[in-house]
């Protein structure tokens, strides 16, 4: 029984089962609500998208890039849709691997004004990032841990070894920050 429990626990922790609770059992919707007959079930929509092991169990950026979804970029025709292809190096002196922050993937979803200048200054090196703050829902944690991939996925941000970082910085000064 204990072994079974451990197996079930690790499967659900690792998200290997990739299943979604029906709305009537999610403890958030009122099971008596007449809407439950009409609303789309998460499993119906999300099971068709690129699989992940955390959050919604969907690789959302991949879903965009492969065309699995094509969400609208704007409602007002006059809105300028900004996408920036620029990588920044963060945490270049830490105990964890270096963070290569890609603006492109973020601006596919977000506008510059969603992060700048109130959360992060545009000037490279001007931001003091802290995991404590991030885990408390500040800085990157405004989204990561709430809507974008959760903070259990350390290596998705801490994605570059120091050796690789040094190699890339020497090669391409435009990527150096």
């Amino acid at each position, binding site marked *: 029984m*204990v072994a*079974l*429990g*451990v197996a*079930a*626990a690790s499967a*659900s*922790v690792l998200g290997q089962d990739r299943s*979604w*609770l029906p709305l009537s*059992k*999610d*403890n*958030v*919707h*009122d*099971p008596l*609500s*007449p*809407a*439950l007959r*009409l*609303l*789309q079930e*998460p499993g119906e*929509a*999300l099971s068709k*998208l690129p699989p992940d092991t*955390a*959050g*919604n169990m*969907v690789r*959302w950026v991949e879903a965009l890039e492969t065309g699995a*979804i094509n*969400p*609208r*970029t*704007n*409602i*007002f025709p006059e*809105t300028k*849709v900004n996408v920036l292809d620029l990588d920044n190096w963060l945490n270049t002196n830490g105990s964890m691997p270096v963070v290569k922050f890609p603006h492109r993937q973020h601006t*596919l*979803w*977000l*506008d510059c004004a*969603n992060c700048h200048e109130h959360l992060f200054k545009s000037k490279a090196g001007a931001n003091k990032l802290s995991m404590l703050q991030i*885990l*408390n*829902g*500040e800085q990157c*944690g*405004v*989204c990561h*841990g*709430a*809507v974008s991939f*959760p*903070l*259990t996925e350390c290596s998705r941000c801490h994605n570059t070894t120091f050796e690789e970082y040094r190699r890339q910085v020497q090669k391409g000064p435009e990527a150096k920050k």
Partner: protein
Amino acid sequence: MRGRPSAAAMVAGFLAALQFLAVPLARAEYADVLINKRSEKEGMRPVVFPHWFHRIRFRCKVCHNELGFKMRAGGNDVLMVDIIEGKFCGMCHNGQIAWSPENCDLCHSGKPGTPTQIFGGHETSGPGRW
């Protein structure tokens, strides 16, 4: 001075922790927002806002930049009168892009008694303040 917990108590605690891990808790989909600033006071079920559903159709920037929704659950003061006038949710929920505000139950479908919050997936269960 506190005594050491007995072996039996430790085993019981361990089993309880295991059970907690093994039995999947009924929980919202990641990033679902429960909005209950006014709903229940006004006699309606709270609102469930599913991020997963909306982001399949709209990028974050549409609501969080064009429509002016702040990125903090509970940080937006949205009145039904705003929505009916075409602001916030009403930009799409107007009977043209999405269902119109007369379909009260479709948004007001939350479990009564649930406070405003966002359902996160890691240890902090979402942002630390809202």
